[in-house]
């Protein structure tokens, strides 16, 4: 077995363990922390696939900022531990069934139709470096890039409009004018 395979198997075990930990933890904060571990492991998978930039984005945006947001929301709502099982009536067997179907499907693809995957050519070693992405971003994808700027501006406005108390904003502005 090559180092890649060993690394992959080890990380896969960590990722699955973290995912299970997130699901079964009775405390929302622990769940969030398990999710961070899961995200970090997935970031290493991206590295193994030769996509360092995506790995970096995964760590900074998902494992970093978004999980901070998650934790704040959990703490905002009060992080009480779950006492007993929630009321999931018919959803639970359905979810188990769907999960089983997914596993069976994946197993079929990997073990029976493994020939489908073997055709994939691995990307070149320097493919997907930040520099390549930068050049592509400002050549072909310049317009989408600018649209992203507008979108982020809108997100900023939305975050403030929806969370801040309108009357408070107005009072503050008028105080400054006075």
């Amino acid at each position: 077995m090559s180092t890649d395979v060993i690394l992959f198997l080890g990380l896969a075990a960590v990722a699955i363990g973290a995912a299970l930990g997130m699901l079964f933890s009775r405390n929302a904060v622990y769940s969030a922390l398990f999710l961070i571990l899961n995200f970090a492991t997935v970031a290493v998978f991206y590295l193994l696939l030769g996509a360092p930039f995506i790995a970096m984005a995964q760590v900074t945006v998902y494992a970093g900022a978004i999980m901070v947001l998650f934790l704040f929301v959990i703490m905002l709502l009060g992080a009480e531990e779950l006492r007993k099982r929630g009321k999931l009536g018919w959803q639970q067997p359905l979810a188990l069934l769907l999960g089983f179907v997914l596993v069976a499907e994946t197993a079929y693809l990997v073990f029976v139709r493994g020939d489908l995957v073997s055709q994939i050519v691995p990307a070149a070693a320097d493919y997907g470096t930040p520099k390549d992405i930068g050049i592509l971003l400002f050549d072909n994808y310049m317009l989408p890039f600018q649209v992203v700027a507008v979108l982020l501006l809108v997100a900023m406005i939305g975050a403030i409009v929806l969370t801040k108390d309108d009357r408070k904003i107005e009072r503050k502005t008028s105080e400054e004018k006075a």
Partner: protein
Amino acid sequence: MQDNWLFIGIAVVIAAMLPMLPIAAARILSPHRPNRLKNETYECGMETVGDTWVQFKVQYYVYALVFLIFDVEMIFLFPWAVAYDNLPLLGVIAGLVFIFLLLDGLAYAWRKGALEWS
């Protein structure tokens, strides 16, 4: 390429071991005779009053949102900075427009008092 990451991986493992080893060693080697006084918090502040799972203020959430937006902006500007030398003038201007639009967003957050602790 992959080898470089291998070294980083080894460094991560060593970095994790450094604090874990002494803790584990202390647990194994040290005598274990706890009493009330020993178990108290020391050097790290006071004894906590009430429950430690307190409710956070909404303000944290607004901060986190603003932080998230600038985090995503950083992700987009990183390739711009790395590829700077190879970009046409138009690309450089595009990056500046991007920054200016988000500066306007920052000004908005500032002016509306979202960055203030009220």
